[in-house]
């Protein structure tokens, strides 16, 4: 019995959410191909409200609106590039999960390659050093045995 108020309190956020007038009507696609294209597109676009979610997953009201907007643009025959451009013009490159190769995103693209090269260098260096000092390694092993 005493749990009832707690349960009711847990449901309160749902009420608050209802005020945001989210359009919950499912989108009706012409064919599965269009639906696949829509899913692909919304999965690589970022929801600006919950920034670690994509537009396909997010339940934020803005994500609903943007999905509707994208759907309408698809119905109007606009290409994926045009739709992305529409969003970039309004929200910036940040909406793209795959950032374009530009001056300020250079580090994103170059850093992994650089790190790989540095890692390979370190491994190569330590291997060649071990080869050069076989006695020291053997000596270490011996001291280990003596104990």
């Amino acid at each position, binding site marked *: 019995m005493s749990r009832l108020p707690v349960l009711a309190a847990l449901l309160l956020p749902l009420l608050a959410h209802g005020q945001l007038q989210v359009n919950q009507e499912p989108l009706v696609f012409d064919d599965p191909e269009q639906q696949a294209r829509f899913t692909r597109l919304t999965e690589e676009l970022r929801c600006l409200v919950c*920034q670690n979610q994509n537009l396909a997953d997010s339940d934020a009201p803005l994500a609903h*609106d*943007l999905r509707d907007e994208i759907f309408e643009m698809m119905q109007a025959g606009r290409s994926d590039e045009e739709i992305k451009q529409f969003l970039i*013009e*309004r929200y*910036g490159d940040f909406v793209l999960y795959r950032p374009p190769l530009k001056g300020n995103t250079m580090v994103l693209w170059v850093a992994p390659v650089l790190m790989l090269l540095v890692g390979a260098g370190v491994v190569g260096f330590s291997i060649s050093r071990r080869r050069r000092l076989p006695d020291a390694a053997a000596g270490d092993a011996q001291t280990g045995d003596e104990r």
Partner: protein
Amino acid sequence: MMSRFLPLILFLLLGALLAVGLTISDTKTHIPSPLIGRPVPDFDLPVLDDPARRLGPQDFSGAPYLINFWASWCVTCVVEHPVITDLARSGRLRVVGLNFRDEPDDALGWLARHGDPYAVSVSDYDGRVSINFGVYAAPESFLVDPQGEIVYKHIGALTPEVLEETILPMVSAMQASGS
């Protein structure tokens, strides 16, 4: 010799990386608006308390103004409200309200409760115009110059500091160059 200092060097590099991450973390979530330097997105919206009347950007050009996106469901807008009210009362900058994703009745009730600082509020019921402005949070404010170009965007509640240090100096500069 080198290997003795290697952990220290790695530690310092890691420290530097984390320090950079910490200092940019504040600005990281604030997306720079691609609209800055561009004309205000066109709109044609009904006036909140007189829906028969419709207004667009051309009705506001000629003098600088601030477009403030607000809604009755927006908690931070209540926090920001006294700052907007003071600004509007001072007469130093026109504040145009853009009420978005809101029921007009709720919006009017909100203004009745807290006071109406806006020169006028227009109603973007379905949020289409706010998408064209790239608004993703509330409140958001756009400073528009007399030629109708967006010169500054602030996301979140306006503070007296932002007004005094950033927005109002920009307005003064516009007025100085205009006259």
